[in-house]
């Protein structure tokens, strides 16, 4: 059976979640693998959320926030961006390919871009194959 990745996505309420809603209202089709979790701001995405998701079996994690300058809370997306770069380095040390974590800006009007992004990201995770970290964690515990 072909590998079907599991993808967890954190979307900010104001831009990206609304953008994903727009993809829906526009009836755009995209890969089913994504599971969306809403936070008020991408700045709320705690590193723990990302690490726990990997630990529990996510093969890829997609974070989306408002475009620079458009954050509903002024600058939460910049906080997210800084954390993202650190997290990428960190997960690499833990044996998770950094490509499994991705951040992109999606505005409330970018339903099409969101649908395309999901397909692109799902494709890249499919190529990477399943994440091994869940197995590792299970073996260790």
């Amino acid at each position, binding site marked *: 059976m072909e590998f*079907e990745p*599991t993808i*967890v996505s954190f979307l900010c*309420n*104001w*831009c990206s*979640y*609304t953008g*994903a*809603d727009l*993809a*829906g*209202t526009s*009836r*755009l*089709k*995209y890969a*089913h693998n994504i*599971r*969306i*979790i*809403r*936070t*008020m*701001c991408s*700045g*709320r*995405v*705690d*590193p*723990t*959320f990302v690490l*726990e*998701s990997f630990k*529990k*079996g*996510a093969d890829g994690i997609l974070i989306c926030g408002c475009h620079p*300058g*458009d954050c*509903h*809370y*002024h*600058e*939460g997306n910049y*906080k997210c961006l800084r*954390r993202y770069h650190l997290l990428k380095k960190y997960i690499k040390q833990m044996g998770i390919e950094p490509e499994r974590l991705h951040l992109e800006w999606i*505005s*409330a*009007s*970018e339903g099409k871009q969101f*649908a395309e992004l999901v397909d692109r990201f799902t494709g890249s995770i499919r190529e990477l194959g399943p994440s091994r970290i869940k197995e590792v964690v299970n073996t260790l515990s």
Partner: protein
Amino acid sequence: MEEVRIGVYVCWCGNNIAKMVDVQDVAMEVETLPNVVIARDYKYMCSDPGQDLIISDIKKHRLNRVVVSACSPRIHELTFRKALEHAGLNPYMFEMANIREHVSWVHNDREEATRKAKSLVAAAINRVCWHESLEKRSVEINPATLIIGGGISGITAALEIADAGKQVYLVEKSAQLGGFASKMCLTSPFMYSTTQMIRAKINKVMNNPNIQVLLNTQIEELSGYLGNFTTTVSEDGRDLELKFGNIIVTIGLKAFDPSVIENYKYGILPDVVTSLEFEGMLKAGKIETRDGRIPRHVAVIHCVGSRNATYHDYCSRLCCKNALKYANMVRAAIPGANIFEMYADMRAMGNGCEELYSVTSKKNVMFLMFDQHNGLPEIRKAGPKDNCDMIIELDEKLSGERIEVPADLVILMVAIEAHEEAKRLAQVTGVSMCGNQFFIERHPKLDPVATTTDGVYVAGSCQAPKDIPDSVAQARAAAARVLCTISKGNVEVEVTTAEVNEDRCCGCQTCISVCPYTAITFDEEKSVSVVNEVLCKGCGTCGSTCPTGAIRAQHFTDLQILSQIDGLLEKSMELKEV
């Protein structure tokens, strides 16, 4: 802790969800999950009987948590929270799983879609277990209103609110009120004098004691929140502090600059003018070429910058009917002139417009159709032998022939663009913009004047190209919304603010450095951070920064989101293995 008793409701949304998701299967599957007392599927959860179902179940089954799996929480979260309140439950003991916008509408595979729906509902069930009762907070509304932009929308909204006896600050960037509409000669399709119409309105504004007009003024910064905003403007060199409870943004539009379209030679050939410049001619009472001759051939080109992938995809909505107005006015002023309307599609919509189109077509006006995507008409200077100043060459779509048309005057129906101040003001007021820099309303159908920022409303062409009647209607709607909040006197606000656990706080003050609202201060005596819940907007950035987990973003706590992740992945994994 009390026993958790959850009711789960899976909505069909008619066929919108049920077609792609096996809703009964979802309900059956999640009913077996821990803490779930009852799980049902129903045709329309948001309908009155749907809500009554929840209310009666809460009473009958002593439910203390509810999960509705339906559309986006951005649409119906409040509806269901109210239903919980009716049943005597705290409205925050509720969670929604979005299986319409995020599942049924975007996927093709029914089996996968059902599987995804199950994991989203399982996640919501896990999350709602950790929800807590939050007490609503209400803030008093300052009865004054700030209106940014003194065009027809701003003026209308100002008068509406001032006539109700409330204070209005009407701020206009330029030296006079009236905006774009005041640059027009007559309205279309019913030929009213805009000058008279606007002047009468401006007089009313100027003489209304409840309206303070601030010309040559811009809003640079804004602080506060719904009910209590503050800004400082400069008036005659003095700083003036304004306090108000609501804001209506009516900054209007900008006309497209056609010089970027080479075919039309705007700025090169003197008698190629924009619709706006032609309005100036009409206002001055003469239609003539730059050198003062009466044009014998007048061409009107539609969709200049509109409905064209290179410039703007959207339709500017006003141009067709104005172009028809021009044909009529040229015909009246110069009975013998040849008049050409070059259009891509005739889209004169609205009351009286189709009638204007048919009247115009009987006035010896030549309608020529061109294809927006396969070459625009091309204007060139006429040769010495031609009996005209310019020649317009185009592929006429209906006849399928390439033709040449004489012209002495060409009117370009320029597109409507977002105002050049739109981006800056979006940042100042916190309003979202679409890709074309028009402001986005809270909901395109159900909430077309509010924005995603509480207390900030939009009206007029800053939201999308609009004619005068639509702008006036929207301005009055925005004014009505503002008056509603004013007459209520106070408003309930989100209580999903951050909270500090003083026992856990180590006093590192990292939270203070990341808070965009300076809502967190440091209590030197106790050596802990303190959140001012009036200033806190609940973004949760502090929560994800706090190294000791002392700050909780209420309703988006670590525990709630981590349980959601758990539910999501456990269910996904379990279903995958099956």
